[in-house]
């Protein structure tokens, strides 16, 4: 069973605030789900390459397209809509709390 400190560590990595009650509940739930997926250990994956997607990886050689290497022209309305959606903004900038202490 996952230790409570482990749950707290994962929550901090995931930037999720959890109550003490939630941490305990997650200890049990996460442990039981992780136990279920242990089933995967029984599969023989000795000489298999992982497949991360059902389509082949995109590269320029395989036909992937690159856009022009220059600034993209954007409508000012687009930018305004994006800034408007931010919870805290000032002028054309999104405002955040201090990044450095």
């Amino acid at each position: 069973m996952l230790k409570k400190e482990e749950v707290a560590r994962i929550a901090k990595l995931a930037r999720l605030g959890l109550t003490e009650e939630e941490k305990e509940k997650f200890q049990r739930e996460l442990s039981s789900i992780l136990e279920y997926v242990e089933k995967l250990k029984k599969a023989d994956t000795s000489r298999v390459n992982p497949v991360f997607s059902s389509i082949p990886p995109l590269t320029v050689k395989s036909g992937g397209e690159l856009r022009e290497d220059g600034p993209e022209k954007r409508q000012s309305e687009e930018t305004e809509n994006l800034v408007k959606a931010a919870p805290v903004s000032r002028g054309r900038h999104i405002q955040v709390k201090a990044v450095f202490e």
Partner: protein
Amino acid sequence: MSKMELCELTIKQAHQGLLRKDFSALELTRAFLNRIKRADKEINAFLTVSEDLAVTQAKNVDKEISSGEGISVLAGVPFCLKDNILIKDLRCTAGSRILENYVAPYDATVVRRLKELGGVILGKTNMDEFAMGSSCENSAFFPTKNPYDLKRVPGGSSGGSAAAVAANMTVFSLGSDTAGSVRQPASFCGVVGFKPTYGAVSRYGLIAMASSLDQIGPITKNVEDAEIVSNAIFGKDKMDQTSVELEPSVSVLNLEELRIGIPKEYFIEGMEKEVKERVNEGIGRIERAGAKIEEISLPHTPYAVPAYYVIVFSEISANLARYDGIRYGYSAAGDPKIKTLLDVYLESRKEGLGKEVKRRIMLGTYTLSRGYYDAYYLRAQKVRAKIKEDFDNAFKKVEAIITPVSPTVAFKIGERIADPLEMYLSDIFTASVNLAGLPAISLPCGKANNLPVGLQIIGKSFEDRKVLEVAKVLEKILK
């Protein structure tokens, strides 16, 4: 035609009616808006009804019709979309409080295409939060009810879309499918649900859950409608580098030459007896109609659900990092008690995200973390390769694979919500398909205890048009 009969029309019937001037596009749209006002009080399929937009779009189609210009088959046809598909200037919540008041700044590519063809948007439908769930009970707002039995779930996560089609509150709907989220609700609600090959439909404007698995797909009253909608939304899109152009149409299907595989691992213990019977009866009718049925094996089937969940948890933890209270959505930043940047993240996500979402983010963070990446994520992606190989081998012998969609009919609201694992097992017949990126469709094949049962047809990668062709033929046989 009565108002109710207008709501029962298929796409082709609506189109013919508009051309013959039996009714106007505005009348057709108003019939649906009224039906939603009456029926949705009980069903709760809609999160947002876009009355003004729909009326404006319908009026534009009427102008086109009266000017004598030809109209496309989708012009004037009312439809709705799962609330994780962006429509410019409309609210888009993904079924979550963290996006409760978020207004989309652009149209998804599928929306742009359907708007260009004159489709009329009725509104946005309810879903499990961020598409995480198989019942619509994880919506942060309210559960949607199954039109066949209001005490039961419509399935999920595109439950609102499926219920809206089944209750005639729309002609068709768009949902999204990551492990069965279009096919399973379609089967629970007695309608058709199609998941295209991964890459066949652009994901631009679809709120991402698992980027290597998600696909948008239509939920419709019959296969012909699914084909019409699919043709409108298929296609390479420069805004989605994983999108691919499909091969053009196939030759006409000869049922006697069709070889269908039935995977023995899919007919297991734990299926409801009557569901198994309906699916087997369906297969029997298909065989008597001339198709060649043979048993095949997909040996890595028992690993599909655990592999799927490890992969989906991992991709979720990455895709949902953006909901941090900084650029959009619910934020704790304005709260005077919140002093630091870290607290903005912790508190915004604590308040805005639901239980199932948090659970999956936690699990994904764990499976991707140092020391566990190899044992979980990498191993799951290796198993994924084996699952894909199973299908590739099967498709050397057969052209289509038939399976059940769900081990059960629609379950009661509240019945499975206590144990997340029990809910995850709902995906047992559908998840492999997303792992392998194949096209698959759910068709109604009778009832068990008065509740709809679905049958799944799976095809080869990029043979979407063939799957739809096969489904059209089998639909007639199963009626």
